[in-house]
């Protein structure tokens, strides 16, 4: 495949845009290596040494931080797995199977896109209180598995796959599940990668629900945990520490993106080309 060559003017614009977007990130990174005392007096000192690892050492000095990372991983991976399973099965059903009230149910699922989390948070909290499930992985994972966007995305992706493929497999004697599992599902990997990353990022960055459901420090996710370590006026008296926390919390996400970026690009390019 021949690589597309960008016009020099377009390339310049892309570079300028990239630099503008990188500046805040570099600023955060730079501040994270400066002492809090220095930044209290003047943040422009980020451009001159000395630099320090003290802020990062303070993060690791909290014995709970590794537990919070594990909690975040369990919650994010659990939620991602659940969403992929549910969305794939639901998407296949809505795209391929004929059952009563299919369109009505699909519309009801889509209406979920219009309901913000804030509108249901109290009812959700009361439900989990009633069954005494707060401060469990179950409570942190389950609510996030209801993803209308995932069902919609997978439905559309399954619909875009020609039905001839299913029919050929059925003629060869494959069962419905075999068609789904061995024939169609592998074709949806780009969409699943996109959905998986989207859900993982959302779960990893989520703050509100973990804040009010996982209230014991043993169940803090990384976002809640690192926020708890901040002192009042952290943006003033602990700016370097605050920035190191931001960098630290973002690292796993960066790694995930680097691993899966091929799938993301494929999915975006595929969607654009259709």
């Amino acid at each position, binding site marked *: 495949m021949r690589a597309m060559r960008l016009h020099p003017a377009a390339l310049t614009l892309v570079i300028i845009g990239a630099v503008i977007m990188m500046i805040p990130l570099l600023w955060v990174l730079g501040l994270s290596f400066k002492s809090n005392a220095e930044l209290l007096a003047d943040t422009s000192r980020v451009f001159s040494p000395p630099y320090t690892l003290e802020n990062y050492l303070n993060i690791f000095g909290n014995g709970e931080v590794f537990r919070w990372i594990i909690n975040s991983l369990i919650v994010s991976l659990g939620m991602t797995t659940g969403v992929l399973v549910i969305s794939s099965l639901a998407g296949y059903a809505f795209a391929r199977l004929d059952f009563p009230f299919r369109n009505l149910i699909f519309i009801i699922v889509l209406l979920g896109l219009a309901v913000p989390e804030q509108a249901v948070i109290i009812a959700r909290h009361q439900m989990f209180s009633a069954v005494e499930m707060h401060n469990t992985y179950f409570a942190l994972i389950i609510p996030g598995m209801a993803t209308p966007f995932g069902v919609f995305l997978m439905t559309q992706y399954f619909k875009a796959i020609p039905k001839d493929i299913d029919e050929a497999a059925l003629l060869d004697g494959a069962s419905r599940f075999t068609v789904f599992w061995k024939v169609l599902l592998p074709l949806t990997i780009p969409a699943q990668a996109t959905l998986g990353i989207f859900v993982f990022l959302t779960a990893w960055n989520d703050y509100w629900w973990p804040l009010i459901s996982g209230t014991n420090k043993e169940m803090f996710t990384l976002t809640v945990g690192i926020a708890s370590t*901040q002192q009042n006026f952290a943006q003033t008296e602990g700016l370097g520490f605050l920035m190191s926390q931001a960098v630290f919390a973002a690292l796993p996400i960066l790694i995930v993106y680097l691993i899966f970026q091929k799938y993301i690009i494929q999915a975006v390019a595929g969607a654009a080309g259709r």
Partner: protein
Amino acid sequence: MRRAFLFLLLVIAACTPSDERTELRIQRFFGACDADYGGRTDIAAAEGECGIMTSIINAFEAENPDIRVNRNVVFWPGYDQLTAQLAANDAPDLVTMHGSVISDYQARDLLLPLGDAMAEQGINTADFTDAARRAVEIDGQLWGLPIDTWAPLWHINMNLFREAGLVEEGEPILPTNKEELFAQAEQFRQRTGKPYFVQATANEYASFTRNFYTFIYQQGSSPYTEDGRANFTTPEAAEALSLFREIYERDMTTKNQDYSASVSGFLNGQGGVYLVGTWMVGTFEQASKETGHALESGYTVYPYPQLYGRNVTYADGHNWVMPADPSRTPEEREAALRFLEFFAEQNVHWSRTGHLPVFQETIDSADWLALPHRENLAPLAANAQPLPKSIRRQFPIETIVGQESAAAVTGAKPVDQTLADMERRINTILDNL
């Protein structure tokens, strides 16, 4: 293989000593600093809110081997989490809470009264300062152990004050009325070329609210009526807002600085007086010891000067409260009370944070008075003025008062309209409780 694995698990379980200590769940803000203070029990050597708090809790656990402290540090101020915990019947044994918030929880029967229990435990509640008592007292009952009292202060750059000719016998000359304030601010600008005040006026509402309340109270009025409604359409409220509007219009203050920029501005000598709370005393005192610093050998701090008829300053404070929890055992309750007793004994150590002690005995002690500037701040124990406990939702109200005040002070909105809008918005909240 499976049997061997199960056997191994049983052996491990049998060898693990069971923890028969009473668990005490303490939930607090002030951040975490385990890297520096995680294992330290030397309270006297600790510095800062987080360091001293962590050391006190560590020392308590070390001195009480029958109690295991489960520490839950929450993001400031932690009330969302606490509310969620109470809704889930999973409240901790002790929680840090602002005095201005106590009535929100007490009114819904979510806190336990502690006056009698604290007295039985040997805590001298009769020695609470007026400010500390007002923070925790509702209907004659004490609903917590005060940790401290904090108030906004006049932090002063003495080097600039000297340059401005506003120092006499080593002490800053402070205004005693509005006219003197403007005259001194004018003199300050003429001689130093800098504004008299450093203020956080951008994206910062709390300081506007504190100033507004302080100068209403100083005029002998109150921002709220006795039956708990906002009362801002008064000449005194208009005067309090107009005072800061004039300061702003006459360029007697730094402008467009958020909280961080204003702290930095004061540290870098951008103005003479910084209006911020007790918590910054230690930071500025430390800066005054550094060679070449704008505050080098030139920092002092005072309560707000009396510009009107009454010598009062709006104040709030931190407190320990005990959430209601029917499942709490007598042993857990006893452990909590023992912790409160221990904490009360460390009052002078906590006051090194800059906040005011809650026991008059501590304020009168040589130890406390020996700390920098504490003699100047001692009158606050009597002059600090929290809002009445009948006013609930003081946190969201603070934001509304601050937003509206900011609009008036910066000239974006007429004072009378501001006060009417402020009153209407707040009474809408209060009417719906």
